[in-house]
């Protein structure tokens, strides 16, 4: 009670200093644990080939060098390009279609919407392995195996349940009167979606893009099954580098690091759209 007069008035327990310290120590320990693989990844990728060995895994390199990155890049580059060409359209188209689905399910209700939505969600729970063979057969019939287009199509469709869910959940929260207002102003479904609903749904779009891009980029199975060597995505190419007879650890690590940059980049770029308050001002006072 005496200290309250001197120190800035805070409501806190007597133990709060210890509690805070302990909390930070625990958190820091967990962060370290979590980052160990990243540490190994980084230091190994920057080591001189001669220094790389499992016994010296934990040691920092004598000199940091980026040579390995330069060395693996040419091998990785075609796969990298394929992955970009595949993941970008797959995530954009899947997000847009998901937005349209979500909008219709949330705000432009039609009879049967309550049956359609669970059916779409059901798609999320179908295991990849179960559909792999029929899918490959179907795409072969359609002449879509080998190139990227088949893979893109598969990622778009496989992404729809989750993107639909993301957008539906988001659109449910926006005011009905906003949609009504657009209608009275003369906009039909498509224009209401494009001009009114989508601009508000940027946060949902960011979530959907990050999710879709990451899963399309990181996919290995579909890429392996549906594409030929020329169209291999980076994950398959990576496997080839890492899968040689003698495992060149530093090259594998450098390639893995390179291959993970785009997903990080997408997260950083899109993350800023996670901001709140896009609905601000729509409603009274």
């Amino acid at each position, binding site marked *: 009670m005496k200290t309250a007069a001197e120190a800035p008035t805070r409501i806190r327990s007597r133990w709060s200093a210890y509690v805070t310290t302990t909390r930070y120590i625990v958190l820091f320990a967990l962060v370290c644990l979590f980052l160990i693989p990243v540490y190994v990844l980084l230091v190994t990728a920057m080591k001189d080939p001669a220094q790389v060995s499992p016994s010296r895994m934990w040691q920092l390199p004598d000199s940091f060098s980026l040579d390995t990155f330069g060395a693996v890049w040419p091998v990785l580059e075609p796969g990298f390009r394929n992955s970009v060409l595949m993941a970008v359209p797959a995530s954009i188209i899947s997000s847009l279609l998901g937005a349209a689905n979500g909008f219709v399910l949330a705000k432009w209700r039609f009879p049967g919407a309550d049956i359609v939505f669970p059916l779409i969600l059901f798609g999320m729970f179908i295991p990849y392995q179960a559909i792999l063979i029929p899918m490959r057969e179907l795409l072969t019939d359609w002449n879509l195996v080998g190139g990227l287009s088949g893979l893109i199509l598969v990622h778009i469709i496989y992404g729809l349940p989750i993107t639909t869910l993301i957008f539906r959940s988001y659109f449910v929260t926006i*005011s009905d*009167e*906003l949609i*009504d*207002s*657009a*209608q*009275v*102003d*003369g*906009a*039909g479904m498509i*224009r209401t979606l494009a*001009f*009114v609903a989508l*601009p*508000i749904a940027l946060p949902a779009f960011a979530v959907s893009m990050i999710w879709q891009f990451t899963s399309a980029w990181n996919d290995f199975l579909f890429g392996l099954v549906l594409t030929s060597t020329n169209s291999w995505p980076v994950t398959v190419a990576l496997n080839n580098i890492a899968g040689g007879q003698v495992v060149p650890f530093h090259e594998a690590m450098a390639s893995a690091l390179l291959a993970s940059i785009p997903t990080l980049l997408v997260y950083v770029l899109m993350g800023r759209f996670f901001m709140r*308050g*896009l*609905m*601000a*001002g*729509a*409603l*009274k*006072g």
Partner: protein
Amino acid sequence: MSEKTSENQAAPATTLTAAISTREPVGIRLENVSKRFRGGVEAIKDVTLAVAPGEFVVLVGPSGCGKSTLLRVLAGLEEVSSGRIHIGDKDVTTQLPQQRDVAMVFQSYALYPRMSVRGNIGFGLRMRGIGKDERRRRVEEVAQVLGLEHLLDRRPAALSGGQRQRVAMGRAIVREPQVFLMDEPLSNLDAKLRVSMRAQLTLLHKRLGVTTVYVTHDQTEAMTLGQRVAVLRDGVLQQVDTPQQLFHHPVNLFVAAFIGSPSMNFVHATVSNGAASFAGVRIPVRPDSPLARGDRKVIVGVRPTSLSLASGNGQPELAVTPAIVEDLGDERFVIFDVDAPRVDTEATRAAVEAQAADDALLVPLDRATFTARLPAGTPVTVGEPITVALDPDRLHFFDPATGASLEEATSLTRGASSR
């Protein structure tokens, strides 16, 4: 309405006539319109209503009575379950909102949050394929009329409540629609702003002459804005009349209780030998009224303004003890109870609950409570008995069973008006 004459409102309105071309106004006709929601709620029951070209009709009623639903049905945002809707001489019952030439101001304003004020106001024009230059011109004209010029490039989030309200209004005006539909557009403004916006709305309607249906549950708004007022209860249209008629000749208990503030006082009474009596007062009914013959039970309605301090001029008098005196500056509300059973019908309850202020709760519940509206100087003190006089010519009689007005029977002054 004194607000009408204030200068700052008159100025923009003159510009308005120049700015916005006037179109031939059209009427609206609702024929036996019913709306039943999936799930069985019947929000509108067999409503038939004709709005004359250029008329300003206000829809009032307690919360949940179907006002918004009726408006949404007019806009095409809800399908009717049965009945037909005509705008002008077109049957629009099956038309989409986009096809009906109506503009709506929503209860929540519903501004597009990611568009500037300019974008918001111009959106309807853009959707209707109006070119960029004309759009710009019209948006700027309307913005000027509404005093929004300096805000055109702001987002709605950066506007005050009143400014948002004006943007919502601008969005409706700019399209020059055949019909304005407004759903409690002023309900979220503070009291002062509401009064001034109310006046502006009246002016706006005078200048534009666009047929307007306006929803409110504020009866002051209803009485001041409406050329005619439609009272809705549980989806059923009770009475459509001028504010004057509504106030002086309500067709039933509900309308009588709903219209007027403070509410009409009600008391159970018996009519026999040509006079109605309650709490020891005898009020003679007109000799030519059917009530004059035979005996029956009635509910008597007395406006707070029909009560005055007794002056011995022969009016029926009532000795009472004030329980509450509310001083409002230029008038006093005196609340007292009367030695007669309280009128507690569904109709009066529904109407009074809608108007939050319920002084009645403070005084005994088994006896009727009256509110008198007396001039400021009237000498009244809580607890000191006074004698009040009732104006026998301004009483209302209702059937206790049906709630219907027995006025046709009692009043000669009225003739065959309204219904």
